[in-house]
């Protein structure tokens, strides 16, 4: 009898914790929606491009890359950054509750993200540090593409 009561209590407690971890709760623990997962990946990409630009600036200061290489790095970073801005502007327009908005948004965002990758793939200055930073950004963009494909409409 006592064992059953304890077992029931533990099951109820475990269920409360499970439900609490999956939904919004008073102290802010909630699961990200599909679209928020994409947006967080875009935040990471924006941070990656920012770090890449700062790395290029630092490598020029240390005479690791020359002026021509710095200019080329700046051009590619700017174009990839502009591409990311377009992605960001398009993602914010997606209404997760509207199936048509989700459907067209996913196609547009994936296409725009692929353009960012294509731009970054032009980056080849032969510097290992820069190349690693570029690859890290490409990786996050690829992850964003994978997450975009998984976005489903949210029923309200």
């Amino acid at each position, binding site marked *: 009898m006592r064992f059953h009561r304890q077992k029931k209590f533990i099951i109820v407690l475990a269920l409360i914790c499970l439900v609490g*971890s999956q939904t919004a709760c008073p102290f802010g623990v909630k699961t990200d929606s599909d679209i928020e997962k994409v947006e967080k990946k875009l935040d990471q990409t924006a941070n990656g491009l920012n770090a890449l630009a700062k790395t290029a*600036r630092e490598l020029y200061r240390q005479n690791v890359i020359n002026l021509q290489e710095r200019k080329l790095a700046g051009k590619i970073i700017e174009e990839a950054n502009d591409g990311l*801005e377009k992605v960001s502007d398009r993602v914010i327009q997606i209404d997760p509750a509207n199936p048509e908005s989700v459907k067209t948004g996913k196609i547009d965002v994936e296409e725009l993200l692929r353009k960012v990758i294509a731009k970054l793939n032009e980056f080849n200055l032969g510097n290992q540090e820069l190349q690693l930073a570029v690859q890290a950004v490409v990786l996050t963009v690829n992850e964003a593409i994978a997450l975009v494909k998984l976005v489903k409409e949210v029923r309200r």
Partner: protein
Amino acid sequence: MPETKTSETLDSLVKILMLMNGMMPILHGLLENEMATVGLTRQERYELRKKLISETRMIADDLQSDES
């Protein structure tokens, strides 16, 4: 009889505490993940990203200039 009840209550309490202790790393992980953007709406996060993109553009412009 009261002694048995007290013992049962303490026993249950210990089990609950052990269970909660076991769940702490999971809860901590969930909280940590949320800390950076806790409370931000999609719009607020978009605006923060926009600022970062603007900063990167400024650095990229500097990189393309002829000045050393």
